């Protein structure tokens, strides 16, 4: 017997869509001190904005995951957590920048098998100040071959003026969208708040609302970067 709320009806298209929001955080030694402290504060303070952005699209389920990478790669929030339940645990810094391994871990996690059901393009935010110390290009190539990796809206926040923006640009994969530049604690907070909310809205926007949501985001990034703030890092 088929009920109004049964699986067949869900299969007909009334299931909620999921939006995976993944933070990949560089926790290498170069992030020690002010940078990691500012990052922890920034993400914590961005959570209300994330929830507000999710609330704007109640038909979607926003799920949050957090990946940290340094000497090794570790999901600090492995199982996707609804944004309403998401809490931030402060990260610590130390070790090398195995960004390639982080890309590979993202590629393994962002698969249809690991993300069943109807999916919006995931939003990936890469936060890094560093220069990768492993084969980042190989990891990035594997990531870009993954189904959801290629479809994802990819945002990068370059922490400090000497972050490897070339690689971050490759990660973004869109000529017009540049990495968000954060050269001080204050700008890092602003960038993370922006990255944690605006792309989420773009990803969950109804089809046809924008011909190219990434293009709109690129304009937003450019606007953000115009206000570079004080050069500290």
């Amino acid at each position, binding site marked *: 017997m088929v009920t109004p709320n049964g699986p067949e009806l869900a299969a007909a298209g009334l299931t909620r869509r999921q939006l995976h929001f993944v933070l990949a955080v560089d926790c290498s*030694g170069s992030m*020690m*001190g002010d940078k990691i402290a500012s990052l922890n504060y920034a993400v914590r303070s961005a959570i209300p904005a994330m929830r507000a952005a999710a609330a704007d699209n109640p038909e979607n389920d926003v799920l949050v995951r957090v990946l940290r990478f340094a000497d090794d790669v570790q999901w600090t929030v492995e199982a996707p957590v609804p944004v309403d339940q998401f809490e931030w645990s402060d990260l610590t*810094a130390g070790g*090398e*920048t195995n960004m390639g391994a982080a890309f590979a871990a993202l590629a393994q996690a962002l698969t249809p098998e690991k993300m069943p059901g109807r999916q919006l393009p995931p939003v990936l935010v890469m936060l890094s100040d560093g220069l990768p110390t492993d084969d980042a290009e190989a990891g990035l190539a594997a990531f870009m071959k993954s189904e959801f990796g290629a479809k994802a809206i990819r945002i990068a926040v370059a922490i400090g003026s000497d972050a490897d923006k070339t690689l971050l640009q490759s990660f973004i994969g869109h000529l017009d969208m540049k990495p968000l530049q954060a050269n001080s604690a204050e700008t890092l907070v602003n960038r993370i708040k922006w990255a944690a909310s605006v792309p989420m809205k773009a990803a969950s926007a109804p089809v046809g609302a924008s011909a190219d949501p990434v293009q709109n985001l690129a304009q937003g990034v450019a606007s953000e970067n115009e206000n570079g703030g004080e050069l500290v890092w």
Partner: protein
Amino acid sequence: MVKPTKASKSAETSNAGTMPVSEIAGILGRILQRHGMAVLEDRRRTLGLLRDHAPSETRAVRLLMSAYDMDVPKHLAAESGAPSQFKIEQEVNSLVADTGLQADLARWAVNVWSAALSGAAPGSAVSPAVVAAAAAAAPSADSLTWGDDAPAVQVAPTAAPPTAPTVAPSYAPPPSSAAPTGAAGVAAMAQKPMFRFALIGAAIIVAVVGLKSYMDTPDGSTKPASPAAPAQPAAPAQPAAPPVIVASTSEDANQWPEFTGAAHPNNNPNSWQFQFNLRFADARVMTYNVFVAMNANGRAGSGSVRALDIRHLNDGADMVSSTPSLPVSREIESSSKVYITHITTTSWDKNPSRAPNVCIVFSSGNQLRPFTPDKGVFCASELQGNACGERVGCGRLQ
């Protein structure tokens, strides 16, 4: 083996950063051990690793990368075994010339790379001795030698040429007032063509003539008979000082003693190393060790000088005085085709031997060709104010 010394420890603190040389060299060595020398082929990775392992040492990392960009680690790694002091000097000079870095910063960076690379040999940890040696901002030595590539301090009578005058315990009389060095210093005279060679010109020409005749001897190898040592008045008591060969104040180049051990380190014709002993008016005998490397243009370069009061020969490296990198200039006198190279110890990184500042001029001989230290000559005079003053002594380099 170079032992860690108080001097080297004190030299560990550098204005390159707050992290001691040994510590950052240790970090760099561990990076190389963990990732292998191949990591040096990848600039981004090298910089990333340095930043990750020394996050608070921004300035130090930048200095090390400046040296990296000038291929310093590549050049040092090409050396068999630990880089020689002279190789380090060469790299410092190149770094200063090519990047505009201050000499002490360049030396710091080269020393760190040298220590790290020496300690990164397969299966070895960073050697404390190597680190300590690298930590010294200027060349240091153990109690008996100037370094791996340098000969032992020339003090034993047996080290002297058979005919060299052994003057101790006599005291060389001061030069006469008519002596060129009494009128003006070498540097001052060098500014005046009329007197350019007032100090050493005549002496060198005499020496050149003498050398030429020496080199023209039939077998080309037999040393000319040296005259007997001039009679000299007795020196003030200097207890326990062994007899030494000291540079001569004589105007007669034939009277000048020979100091062996002069060389082109690494067979580099633009680099020199030699040593000699000087007796000063207070009767102290100091041994000086000179490193010089010229830039490609051959007209300028840099070098360093170490000195040791011979009474402290057995007191270890703590008593070795050393200068920072010093400017070197060279003139090529076209008529006599003599290279005249100048280096003056205007400052010291450390001077536990209380070595007097000296102006040192040396010549390559009578051929227009790269300097060959053997059969060269030198004169040293005491720096008085900003000018080179009375001659302390001259000698031949062998």
